[in-house]
């Protein structure tokens, strides 16, 4: 009872399809799995910054504070020349920037410009 070469080829083809589907599902999962907090909630000090991983799927970068009045910056940094885009600075409770999905891959970046410490966190999605 040995499998025919033809049957073995079908099995391998099916296996390849299953593996590819699983890999595609993993990529889909991976692109969204790490969306979330990239600068954990704590007391931000002057000149402190955080960055997320690179992705072509990020669309909104937010720097949240408990209160208004603290200068914060959010931006996107691309993985080609590491230039910035969509940079926003203000003292609102939430500081936000958006982008459309697509190349190049970017990472979300948040930065405290405030001399007074404040509690906040940075999130990307």
């Amino acid at each position, binding site marked *: 009872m040995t499998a025919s070469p033809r049957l073995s080829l079908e099995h391998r083809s099916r296996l390849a399809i299953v593996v590819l589907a699983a890999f595609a599902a993993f990529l889909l999962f991976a692109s969204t799995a790490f969306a979330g907090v990239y600068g954990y909630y704590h007391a931000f000090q002057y000149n402190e910054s955080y960055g997320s991983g690179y992705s072509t799927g990020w669309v*909104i970068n937010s720097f949240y504070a408990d209160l208004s009045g603290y200068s914060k910056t959010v931006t996107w940094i691309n993985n080609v020349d590491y230039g910035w*885009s969509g*940079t926003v600075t203000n003292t609102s*409770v939430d*500081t936000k*920037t958006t982008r459309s999905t697509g190349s190049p891959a970017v990472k979300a970046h948040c930065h405290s410009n405030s001399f007074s410490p404040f509690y906040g966190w940075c999130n990307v999605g």
Partner: protein
Amino acid sequence: MRGRTVAQAVVVLASIAGISAGAATGLVKTGVVALSRTPEAADALPAASVLKAGESRRVADFESPTNTLRAVFVARDSDDKLCLWDTNLVSGQQGGGCNFASDPFAGGSMMTSVSLDGGPGLGTVSEVRVIGVVDPSVATVEMRDSKGRTRPVHLTKDQAFALAFHAGAIRSGGLPTVLLARDTTGAVIDEEPVTLGIEVMNS
């Protein structure tokens, strides 16, 4: 007779409840005058925006130095915060900030936001935009640059403004360093420093 009195009492209570409900919507208490007017089609966020559609008003239109059509929107988000958005009308890209709807001006009279393209090096910045919305107590807004020069800022009918500067303004010291809001007597009632955010990285 007693039935009539009860009916009158019900009408009075209903009126009080209606007024309270109106105040609770936030349209009355926010102080953002644009939210008290009836929305028009142009008040909707651009279709390309990644933000969820919600209550919004388009409060100022402007053109960036790179000839991009832009607008300023105020919008209420799902967290019951009021947001101020500098919006690219073509790409839908937006940037801005949100404050609690109960206190959108954070105790002051202005809500502002600064956006820029390029960076982090100052030499690579192609344009800087400053947007804002002010409460009804503000009669005029003016900007002061790093050389101490002042100039008036145009307020739209929705008490909003938008300023755009090309890269040359950075080198010539023409960017605003502070925005001043004055009441009808000319007294300064709010003052907002203008920070690019990249100065820290370049210092």
